[in-house]
């Protein structure tokens, strides 16, 4: 189980030129072992989707490497890269935009089968698509094969997206806000489907979401990485992160989340931030990116020196001068 499937080293991505230059992702490193789930959590604009795209090979990093099974995907040969594209699949956020409206469900799902030469002819493809639709609980499959996306509900479309990613038996799936656009009653069904697939197929997941509750549910046995304006601030196993976060930003986030439980949510202890403003990517604060809002801010340290993501034992990492010092003191 401990074999590294994907390793990301010092990933940085900049957009734009000169004055308009923004650093969307800065010096992000993490590894995902085979069969594991890593959830990338953060607020909008923190760079989680950009990171996901770089991992998926859709966007070239400005600096840093993405290694899949020990090989850098951006210096691979064409053949290897094609193999990577097959081993890795993406589930996109918006099931309304990610399916071609003029293709039937059959055409959508059979395209990758034919493209990668997994079936010999359309007849075989039909049988295979049939099977895949059953796997994602779109039954009876015959009812769905010839439908167009607009004839399906949001949840059904997302299931078609999932079926499409399964066509090529991927060993690694990047799911970018895969359940955010569907209603609650459907969401759980989708999450359970993904969990079942993970267990049956032994897949590895990079699961990107803004919703910590969803991350907790899906990755209870995995890990969560918290991002803030382009950098990782904390990585920990899911139970550790939701019950005992170390980084002040993770703490603030967890304390702020409204919960669907009136007594619990009204009794939560809030973390008071020094400022409500999210820094602009065009004008990032010096030192620790969180220092203008951080309740633990220490002048002369946090605004000068950037904290590195530091291992603090138990497989946890945190990027905060104060938190690391306190843990050091406790030992």
């Amino acid at each position, binding site marked *: 189980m401990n074999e590294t499937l994907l390793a990301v080293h010092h990933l940085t991505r900049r957009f734009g030129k000169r004055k308009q230059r923004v650093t969307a992702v800065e010096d992000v490193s993490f590894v995902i072992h085979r069969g594991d789930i890593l959830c990338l959590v953060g*607020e*909008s604009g923190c760079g989680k989707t950009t990171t996901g795209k770089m991992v998926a090979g859709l966007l070239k990093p400005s600096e840093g490497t993405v290694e899949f099974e020990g090989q850098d995907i951006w210096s691979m040969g064409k053949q290897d890269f094609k193999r990577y594209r097959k081993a890795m699949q993406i589930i996109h956020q918006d099931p309304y935009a990610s399916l071609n409206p003029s293709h039937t469900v059959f055409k959508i799902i059979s395209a990758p089968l034919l493209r990668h030469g997994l079936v010999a002819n359309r007849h075989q493809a039909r049988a295979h698509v049939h099977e895949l639709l*059953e796997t994602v*609980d779109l*039954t*009876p499959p015959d009812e769905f094969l010839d439908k167009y996306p607009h004839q399906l*509900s949001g*949840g*059904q479309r997302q299931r078609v997206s999932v079926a499409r990613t399964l066509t090529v038996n991927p060993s690694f799936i990047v799911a970018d806000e895969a359940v955010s656009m569907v*209603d*609650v*009653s*459907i*969401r*759980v*069904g989708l*999450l*359970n489907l993904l969990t079942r697939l993970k267990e049956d197929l032994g897949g590895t997941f990079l699961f990107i979401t*803004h919703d*910590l*509750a*969803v991350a*907790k*549910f899906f990755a*209870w046995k995995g890990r969560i990485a918290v991002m803030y304006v382009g950098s990782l601030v904390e990585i920990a196993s899911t*139970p550790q992160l*939701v*019950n005992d976060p170390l980084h002040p930003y993770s703490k*603030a*986030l*967890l304390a*702020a*989340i*409204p*919960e*669907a*439980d*009136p*007594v*619990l*949510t*009204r009794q*939560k202890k*809030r973390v008071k*931030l020094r400022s*409500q*403003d*999210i820094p602009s990517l065009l004008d990032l604060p010096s030192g620790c990116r969180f220092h203008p809002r951080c309740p633990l801010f220490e002048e002369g340290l946090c605004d000068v020196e950037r904290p590195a993501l530091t291992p603090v034992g138990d497989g946890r990492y945190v990027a905060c001068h104060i938190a690391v010092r306190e843990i050091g003191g406790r030992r």
Partner: protein
Amino acid sequence: MKNNTVSYLEWGVGEDTKDVYAPLSVRDLWVEYQIERGAVKAVRGVNLDLRKGESLSLIGESGCGKTTFGLALIRLLVKSATIRQGQIIYCRGSQGFDVLTLDEREMRDFRWRECAMVFQSALNAFNPVLHIWDQMYDTVKAHGSMSKDEARQRALDLLRHVQLDPERVIDAYPHELSGGMRQRVLLAMSLLLDPQVIILDEPTTALDILTQRTIIELLRRLKQELGFSMIIISHDLSIAAELADRVATMYAGAIVELGDVNEIFYQPKHPYTLGLIKAVPTVTGEFKELISIPGSPPDLVDMPSGCKFHPRCPYATARCKQEEPPLAEVVDGHLTACFHWEEVQRGHDERWQRFAHSLDRLKEAEQTA
């Protein structure tokens, strides 16, 4: 407005309050949209009293009629929608009138002065080429009778109230503000003419968590200070858990459950509410299995017979397929539209599990057959 004014008691409503009248009482409201396939019954016979100073939260999934209901209250529905029947009785002091009988001009006076709405998606609610002040002044001109100086003073005060830097924000363009700031400006705008009722449609959806938190705290504080009543429309149960005094669950255009917030969350008496609560994960605490509601929401053109929830309901019996249960009070102040509420209340978790499981097995059997 005067000619429609009648003595409040003539309407025979407001039983639930002693000497303060409910600012809004909705009686048997039906709204339909005409589309090619037929009539979309978006609101079906809704009865609801909004109490003075309370916040009432409407929950339910997309397409259950929440937003249509909210828009109907201030008659901002699109042209393809018709209000088939019903009354919306508005009351300030002891005088009341039916909003549905007002003419265009009276309606203008009613909107914003008496009842304001904060719309979904804060970006689209603004005109991108006008300064914030111009849009605020437009609102005042359309609905109110303040002088320009008065209006500006009031606008500045309110912007300060919602924790913005008033001088900077009032002359800004919408695109210069962040999502959270825009939402706060919209809130300030809704308060311009000191309305008695505010309808908020998805006030925190699409905002970041820390921003959501500020908006929630702000709403709580504003309501305390200014004493208005709120209707919060949201698919997000946690907003109801945070802000509501009472919660109404909507399904297929009708209110299926109504009660005190704690009653609804801890003692739900309608299987749909129970299902919604069981489907939402919480962040704090240990891992909890979630249960999904099988099936999908009904087609509002061609609805199932009887109880509209019966095809998805683990408690459904033959009676549910024929008869639609009325919304009735079963415990003090707690209304539900379910024949089997007592069973639901006993909260049979296993029952849901079994039901979901048997559906799965049914599917498997179909597949192998």
